[in-house]
């Protein structure tokens, strides 16, 4: 486990007063806000910043951390010395309860509450809820699927120390799920204390990017390339869609950008979404004499001015 320098994370001196820590935290919280930030690793950085703040903004935790701090540097292999927190009492994670699940092994080893609270037998508390994201393919929303996600969870080892354990969960992704929806898995959050029930796990559904499809709610948009004569004269073309190949009739006189709606072929549900096929007219290359001849005869015979609407 690596030692974490929380002062470095927040970019403050070890002697920084509380209001300076607060200021530094807010500045970074704004910079790495997951809804706003354009930094590629915003989410990871935000977690680090939250973790550093959870320790340094709490006088008890900060004092305990400072006692360790001077002897360690970032990235150094770290084990807490036995009894390192003797004389400190932590008043729980109240203010940050929902976040603590996201914190590092390092944090858990110092401030993990499972270890500290396990002695209080007559005290029951439900475990905290956890939140995570699950990335699925669009096809999974059409057909349903089973996905494995890796989570970390804090637990006690044989000698009563808090360790984090990786666990894999196989999760059934129900058919018809939309982006942004949550799947709730009862009892898969933090274990309860003193026999209290475990918390729940909420998984927010996200679709992995797929350049073929664009999704809006349950409606799906897909671009379909067509030849100029298919658009002009009409044609029946075969299109691979998320729900399988379909034969689609392109009406005569179609222009690029025309949307063909296939009712109920979006993401299944009640009501099911629509599938919109957006026509894209693709020109054959004029790279042979024959092709050039055909383009020349069109230019000659069609008397077509594509810029008529521009008034030229």
């Amino acid at each position: 486990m690596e030692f974490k320098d929380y002062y470095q994370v927040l970019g403050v001196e070890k002697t920084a007063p509380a209001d300076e820590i607060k200021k530094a935290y807010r500045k970074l919280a704004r910079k790495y806000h997951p809804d706003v930030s354009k930094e590629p690793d915003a989410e990871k950085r935000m977690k680090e910043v939250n973790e550093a703040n959870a320790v340094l903004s709490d006088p008890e935790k900060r004092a305990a951390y400072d006692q360790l701090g001077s002897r360690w540097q970032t990235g150094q292999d770290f084990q807490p010395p036995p009894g390192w927190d003797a004389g400190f009492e932590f008043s729980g994670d109240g203010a940050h309860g929902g976040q603590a699940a996201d914190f590092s092994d390092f944090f858990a080893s110092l401030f993990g509450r499972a270890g500290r609270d396990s002695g209080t037998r007559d005290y029951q508390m439900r475990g905290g809820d956890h939140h995570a994201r699950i990335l699925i393919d669009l096809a999974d929303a059409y057909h349903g699927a089973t996905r494995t996600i890796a989570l970390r969870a804090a637990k006690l080892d044989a000698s009563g120390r808090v360790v984090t354990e990786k666990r894999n969960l196989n999760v059934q992704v129900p058919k018809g799920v939309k982006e942004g929806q949550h799947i709730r898995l009862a009892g898969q959050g933090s274990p309860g204390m003193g026999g209290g029930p475990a918390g729940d796990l909420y998984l927010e559904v996200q679709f992995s990017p797929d350049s073929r499809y664009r999704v809006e709610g349950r409606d799906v948009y897909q671009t379909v390339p067509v030849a100029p004569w298919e658009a002009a004269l009409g044609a029946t073309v075969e299109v691979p869609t998320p729900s399988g190949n379909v034969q689609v009739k392109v009406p005569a006189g179609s222009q690029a950008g025309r949307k063909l709606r296939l009712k109920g072929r979006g993401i299944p549900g009640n009501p099911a979404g629509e599938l919109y096929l957006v026509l894209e007219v693709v020109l054959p290359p004029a790279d042979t004499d024959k092709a050039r001849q055909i383009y020349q005869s069109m230019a000659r015979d069609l008397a077509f001015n594509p810029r008529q609407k521009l008034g030229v």
Partner: protein
Amino acid sequence: MAQDDILAGFVLDEVALSLEDLARACAVEPQWIVERVEAGLLGSVSLKAVEWRFVSADLARARRLAALERDFDANQELAALVVDLIEEVGRLRQRLKAAGLTVD
């Protein structure tokens, strides 16, 4: 639990959250939710609190509100205003994407 057990959960929206569920999922007190619902900042419910039900969008919204209020000591109206804007930008980005356009 065996490693290869397959867990089936509930999709929120089909099975909605109660007031207590939502409060727990956001690590706040139920009263925190009640205040924001009554102030019109969260959810769209007119029944008695015991009958309130919340869906995915409410959960995402409530977690954002709680994070903004906590991280910036924002008052509830200001946090709600920021979340309104975040949600609006999200919708617009979705529409841009559906139109085949992207913003950086």
